[in-house]
């Protein structure tokens, strides 16, 4: 029936079947939907500058855990100062011994992570006893965050600031 004639069924025809009266009927596909991709409107990138940053800093300073964090950071800084000689000693012996061997055959990224955490551990080893027990967890997390994320540039920035302030 459908051999020579081409009929338009309105929808795509998947196949044919014969109904109970013996008519050949098309099996049409279910209604086709156009896929609409809902793109969210492009969000412009905002540049956050001083007045807005000031407001954000205020809201950060108002958050309750920041009190404890700042206090812990203060304690860590003091402990690092007091134990500086010990830190230097541990660090130099570590550098002489393991570091050169560690560096061979280790990828840059892995090495960075290993060294960052090693540095944190070296400092922590030296200052741990100096910090009151109730501050220890917080202090360790602050020390590791600061040691891992601080950059040379930031240390230099602080140094420049202090030198200018003199």
């Amino acid at each position: 029936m459908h051999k020579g004639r081409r009929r338009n069924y309105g929808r795509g025809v998947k196949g044919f079947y014969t109904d109970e009266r013996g008519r050949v009927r098309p099996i049409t596909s279910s209604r086709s939907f156009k896929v609409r991709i809902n793109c969210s409107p492009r969000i412009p990138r905002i540049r956050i500058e001083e007045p807005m940053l000031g407001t954000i800093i205020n809201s950060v300073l108002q958050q309750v855990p920041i009190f404890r964090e700042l206090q812990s950071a203060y304690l860590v800084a003091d402990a690092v100062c007091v134990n500086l000689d010990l830190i230097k000693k541990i660090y130099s012996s570590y550098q002489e011994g393991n570091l050169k061997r560690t560096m061979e055959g280790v990828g840059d990224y892995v090495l960075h992570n290993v060294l960052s955490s090693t540095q944190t551990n070296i400092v922590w080893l030296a200052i741990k006893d100096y910090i009151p027990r109730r501050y220890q967890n917080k202090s360790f997390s602050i020390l590791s965050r600061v040691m891992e994320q601080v950059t040379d540039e930031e240390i230099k920035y602080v140094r420049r600031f202090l030198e200018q302030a003199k």
Partner: protein
Amino acid sequence: MSEDSLNKLNELIDLIQKHGKTGARLLFLFKLLKIRVEGEVKRRHPNAIIDEESLNKLCIQIAQELVNIGKDKLTEEDIKKLLSKQMYKNEFKEFIDKGGYNFHE
């Protein structure tokens, strides 16, 4: 990158040797504030670009005030004092930006 991390502790030691407790406190408070502010900015505006220079400036100023206020031990009172000072400063700045007192009205 690896050299960076190798030098970091040396840099830190140098800073502390030169500037003592003030240097260490300033660095730790500065970096902690910076991390927290960056986190807050990302939470509020995930797409935003932070002006690094302004952020550094603000964070180091606050860190220095904390170091000055805190002296030997930083208490909650010190932080609250700083906060009220900071709020006052911002409100005052906003007021000045809006034109201050208008005597000609």
